[in-house]
């Protein structure tokens, strides 16, 4: 049976390789920074104040180039999100001018935003966005955390990864060096820096803090029902284990009739 053992050993090694291969396939040439996110793990929840600060970073920094077209202002007040109060959400929405219409005269008009409106896009269309950004389209950030291998850690690393380029590294005009970007070339200039904005809750706005907060916000934006998912999942699995235990003993009892016949 030694050959059998050898085969089984090979199998287990292969399994390990298969499951660890995801990190190999990631394509990035450097390991992402790892953050102990509050939303990771089976009971993970978002840090409410971090989400609110993260929205402030998005609003005051990212939103000048990046849209979040699948989000509405009302989402900011929903359970499991930043949970701004109803008044705060209304005030945030009212801070934007929204195109609407046509009215009864057939005219388009602008009005103050409402909670039910989508986030206002910085550019009217993709071409305008590209024209304003040297030919590069600033991607929509609604699901960016799920659209990049490495997820939240990658986004955080990218925001932290702006460095002086190595001496022999050639960069074109309008291209920047980033340690974590594939190929190390990125068209987005370093978006965050220490004390770039002033947090309304008084937290010190270090680069690390800004990056963590906005990444937390983007993770929620990509997965707004994450908390409900974790909660329901825990209940479902506990239920299944209890039910399986009951069924297991029923099974033993039923099969006793057969097994005792021997």
């Amino acid at each position, binding site marked *: *049976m030694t*050959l*059998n053992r050898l*085969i*089984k050993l*090979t*199998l287990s090694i*292969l*399994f390990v*390789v*298969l499951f660890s*291969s*995801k990190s190999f*396939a990631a*394509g990035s040439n450097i390991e992402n920074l790892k953050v102990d996110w509050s939303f990771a793990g*089976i009971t993970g929840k978002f840090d409410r104040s971090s989400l609110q600060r993260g929205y402030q970073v998005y609003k005051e920094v990212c939103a000048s180039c990046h849209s979040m077209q*699948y989000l509405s202002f009302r*989402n900011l007040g929903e359970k499991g999100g930043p949970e701004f109060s109803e008044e705060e959400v209304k005030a945030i929405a009212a801070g934007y001018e929204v195109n609407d219409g046509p009215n009864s005269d057939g005219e388009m008009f602008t009005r103050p935003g409402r909670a039910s409106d989508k986030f206002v896009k910085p550019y009217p269309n993709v071409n305008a966005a590209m024209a304003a950004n040297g030919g590069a389209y600033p*991607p929509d950030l*609604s*699901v960016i955390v*799920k*659209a*990049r*291998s490495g*997820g939240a850690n990658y986004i955080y690393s990218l925001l932290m990864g702006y460095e002086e380029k190595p001496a022999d590294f050639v960069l074109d005009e309008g291209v920047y060096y980033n340690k974590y970007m*594939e190929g190390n070339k990125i068209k987005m200039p370093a978006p965050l820096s220490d004390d770039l904005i002033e947090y309304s809750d008084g937290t010190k706005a270090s680069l690390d803090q800004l990056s963590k907060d906005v990444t937390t916000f983007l993770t929620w934006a*990509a997965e*707004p*029902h994450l908390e*409900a*998912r*974790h909660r*329901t*999942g*825990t209940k*479902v*699995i506990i239920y*299944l*284990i209890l*039910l*399986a235990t009951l*069924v*297991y003993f*029923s*099974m033993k009892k*039923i*099969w006793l009739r*057969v097994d005792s*016949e*021997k």
Partner: protein
Amino acid sequence: MSDHNYVPESKVGKWFNDRLPLLSLGAHLREYPTPKNLNYWWTFGGILTFCLITQIVTGIVLAMHYVAHADLAFESVEKIMRDVNYGWLIRYIHSNGASMFFLAVYIHIFRSLFYGSYKSPRELIWIIGMIIYILMMAAAFMGYVLPWGQMSFWGATVITNLFSAIPLVGESIVTWLWGGYSVDNPTLNRFFSLHYLIPFLILGLVVLHIWALHVPGNNNPVGIDIKKPSKDTVPFHPYITVKDIFALLMFMIIFAGFVFFSPNVLGHSDNYIPANPMVTPAHIVPEWYLLPFYAILRSVPDKLGGVLLMFGALFVLIILPWLDTSKIRSAVFRPLYRQFFWILVIDVLALGYLGAMPAEGTYLFLARVSTVYYFLHFLVILPVLGFLEKTDPLPASISEPVLTGGLSTSAAKSDDIK
């Protein structure tokens, strides 16, 4: 199916059953004599039925909210994830359900390979099963296109382009499949239509699969024919139902683990980028369950050759009952086949791994070796092994140990793949 004479007790039941013997069918399903030594590898039939029903039910709900249009599909999926009540749950069950379905079907297929369940008189069960498997791949491939992300679009482009390898008419066939000159809205529409159709074809074939199974009855870990009903069998209900339910619950725990705690780990992150015909992803990879075939496809430098070999890999499975010349079903009594079986498992896993890697250098070389071995297993090793192998003595029945030779059934049992 004529192994009982069921008469309903109630008058109404009798009246109904005389006209449509559904109650007889129910009685047959309850009493169906099943070998009592079936191990947990036999519970995957029930698990697969659960997977199919789950996919159909969640799929019907998703179709109520999904919009099959190139400009709207991605957005409608995001709407399901955000605004539809429990839409995230339904979609994650459906997308992970596809992976779970394939996980279960691969275990089911390899169980059949190990215990020789495809051999006479069960060839048709096997062939119907293979057709189901092929339809599953078609359904899964088209389903993956529907969210209209980058991998959807480029996966569809790569796979449909395979047909252009057919001489003379290839290009025309591809244009016909696409409904235009590239993968576009017409392609998405027809894929949605077919993705909705195929599960019901599978459902019909599952009925045939089970019907064909109920003629000879289940194979079993010892692989010998048994008298039915007898000391060696138990009625399907409650013995097998309770065991199937227990195994199903174990399976559901793993399923739930993926759905609730790692819903995107089996997918590709590029599919959360909306489809863009102008930007090709760095690596186009199919879903994990198609990777072994993808590796075979890419191991041939010639496009037509690759396509033929890929379909050949399925074809050798279909004709497997006639490639395996051994009359002994269970690998428990086939010391050599048992080892070749595990080598095949490693080979297929290796193909899966190599299918996910870039087709170059050592990866390509290993993929070629694994591809050659895959065909060697089915076309050379199995036919020859039936003549050369000295098999262990079979027991007279599954309740009685072997009278001669060293192997008793209990020893044999401990050595099966459990």
